[in-house]
């Protein structure tokens, strides 16, 4: 194992150095970007630090519980930071600041929708999640239902969410790194994939959590620093910023009005539902609730996480607004030096250009390194969630029916990480030129329609039976996927048809009721003997969910 660890670390460092050297060989003509040494050095420091942590974590990763949930020994504060880290991906920093830059107030509305799920998760789910679950959220859905079929269903929808989210992150990562670091797309994809595999395989949840914590701190510090520097140009006055921004923006005073993004009510509500309940169905977020000691710490983690997320979203709002003036009025950030034209590197680069404008190359380098670190941390969390669905749910519980030894289960998990890593690398390369905007939406849609309804019903509704759970879960999965495929983002933008068959971009408002309804109907008409036992078993589950008695703990094993 020690030898393996060293090998893994060497591999990780190698990947990082190869990237550093591969820079100048870039042959891109259109987006030729000078190799950014500030960024690369800071990123290498991050890699070195996290590799050190992975090495340390590897020595502590012995049991399945260590591997999946860091032995359940993470504190509420640490977990809060890690959840915030999982939630604030590079897309959040870059995409949302760009949205404010382009659409003004609409971006802020989006952020509230992203945030509002957290209080709900705390009030209705956190406690029961921690009290009933152990490694994956299927532990809860399959608690009193048929292990084999329900876990298979939950694993399939988990993997669907993980794969789409992972792919979206990979393609985004490749393009971002190409731009920020001046590296080739393929090199960037391999670097992300290999580093991710090293973190997860050797360090399991302990390393993944610490990578996430470090990155969350970097992100908070970096974002705050840019915001402070940018605001100092306006005497720290919000009014000054808005006055000047509305004066120069093409939307004018409409900048601060809800705009085209959420024009029709169905889209607005569907988006709200999808973001809110999608969050409550993302496997890598749910998994974080099992890493803490007890329900007390689980609640605290949500408190800290939502504090950080809410703070950071407001920082991003300021980044976007100040960007309108500082970046939007500076010809050197536009292609061909034409103000109002295309931003160098594309629309998502607002936050990066802003960092450069207010803090020079050093701050740009730091923020670029943070963006890279962010992607790495998020894909690691995703890979671990995907691997646990394969090894814990499918292998240990469905195939081996609970008879697998811990050693083989961890081994299967590591193999699963390698497979997921390679799939991510290959698909990342294949999808380089594809429009991937729909993937994150699809991931949230499936999470909201396939994972969330069955999960919440299994915790709250006595009457849920295996048959109902299967219909609800598969029904939600299929309808979310079908709605997204028939919507504009796939049917028109990817497949190239003329008009979308499904007029809305957000599936949640339709797919969620379908899932709930199917689960309800098929549970009600299920008169089997098994259904009766499952309904009876709810009583004990209910007491455990409420009191935490018998919950998987940090020290005892079941």
């Amino acid at each position: 194992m020690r030898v393996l660890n060293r090998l893994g670390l060497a591999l990780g460092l190698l990947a990082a150095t190869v990237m550093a050297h591969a820079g100048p060989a870039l042959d891109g003509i259109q987006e030729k970007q000078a190799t950014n040494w500030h960024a690369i050095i800071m990123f290498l420091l991050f890699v070195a630090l996290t590799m050190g942590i992975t090495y340390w974590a590897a020595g502590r990763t012995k049991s399945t519980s260590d591997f999946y949930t860091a032995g359940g020994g993470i504190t509420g504060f640490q977990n809060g930071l890690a959840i915030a880290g999982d939630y604030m991906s590079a897309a959040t920093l870059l995409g949302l600041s760009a949205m404010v830059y382009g659409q003004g107030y609409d971006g802020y509305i989006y952020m509230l929708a992203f945030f509002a799920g957290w209080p709900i998760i705390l009030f209705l789910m956190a406690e029961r999640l921690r009290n009933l679950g152990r490694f994956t959220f299927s532990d809860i859905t399959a608690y009193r239902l048929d292990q084999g079929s329900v876990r298979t269903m939950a694993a399939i929808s988990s993997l669907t969410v993980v794969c789409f989210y992972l792919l979206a992150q990979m393609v985004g990562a490749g393009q971002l790194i190409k731009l920020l670091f001046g590296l080739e797309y393929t090199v960037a994809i391999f670097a992300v994939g290999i580093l991710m595999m090293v973190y997860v395989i050797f360090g399991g949840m302990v390393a993944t959590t610490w990578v996430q914590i470090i990155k969350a701190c970097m992100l908070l510090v970096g974002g705050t620093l840019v915001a402070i520097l940018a605001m100092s140009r306006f005497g720290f006055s919000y009014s000054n910023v808005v006055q000047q921004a509305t004066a120069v923006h093409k939307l004018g005073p409409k900048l601060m009005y809800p705009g085209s993004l959420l024009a029709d009510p169905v889209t607005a509500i569907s988006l709200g539902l999808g973001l809110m309940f999608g969050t409550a169905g993302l496997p890598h977020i749910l998994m974080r609730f099992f890493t803490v000691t007890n329900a007390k710490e689980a609640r605290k983690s949500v408190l800290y996480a939502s504090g950080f997320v809410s703070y950071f979203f407001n920082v991003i709002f300021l980044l976007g607004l100040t960007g309108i003036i500082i970046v939007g009025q500076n010809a050197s950030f536009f292609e061909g030096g034409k103000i109002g034209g295309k931003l160098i590197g594309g629309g998502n680069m607002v936050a990066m250009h802003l960092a450069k404008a207010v803090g020079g190359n050093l701050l740009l380098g730091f923020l670029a390194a943070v963006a890279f670190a962010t992607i790495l941390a998020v894909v690691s969390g995703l890979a671990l969630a995907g691997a646990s669905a394969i090894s814990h749910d499918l292998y240990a519980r469905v195939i081996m029916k609970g008879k697998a030894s811990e050693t083989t289960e961890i081994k299967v998990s590591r193999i699963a990480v390698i497979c997921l890593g390679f799939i991510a690398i290959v698909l990342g390369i294949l999808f380089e030129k594809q429009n991937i905007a729909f993937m994150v939406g699809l991931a949230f849609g499936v999470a909201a329609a396939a994972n969330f309804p069955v999960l919440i019903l299994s915790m709250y509704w006595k009457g849920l039976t295996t048959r109902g759970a299967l219909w609800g879960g598969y029904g939600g999965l299929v309808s979310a996927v079908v709605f997204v495929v028939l919507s504009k983002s796939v049917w028109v933008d990817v497949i190239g048809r003329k008009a979308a068959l499904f007029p809305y971009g957000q599936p949640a408002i339709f797919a969620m009721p379908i899932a709930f309804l199917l689960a309800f109907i098929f549970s009600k008409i299920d008169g089997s003997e098994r259904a009766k036992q499952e309904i009876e078993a709810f009583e004990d589950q209910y007491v455990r969910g409420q009191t935490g008695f018998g919950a998987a703990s940090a020290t005892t094993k079941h």
Partner: protein
Amino acid sequence: MSSEMYEHMRNNPKFVKLVTKRGRFAWTLAFIVLGMFYGFVLLVAFRPALLGRPIWQGSMVTIGVAFELFMFIFFWLLTALYVKKANGEFDELTQDLIKDAWKENK
């Protein structure tokens, strides 16, 4: 063993008290958040002009921004309130309940 313990707890009036009190508290907070959030979403959809108005004449702060900032802070304060109550009062009640069940189980 576990099943008997659960049986004891279920029959303890403290359990009913815990579940109803905490449940009512959690759902109240959840309804406040859901109500305000979806109310806001409906405003976005049906009365966008209202949200773009300044909070008072000549101010650069619009009603929409002020209301949203308020929700960011208020929702977070609600989570703090819930954590305080659940980790204090409700958890004490839970511990009591488990102790009682152990005693009965002997």
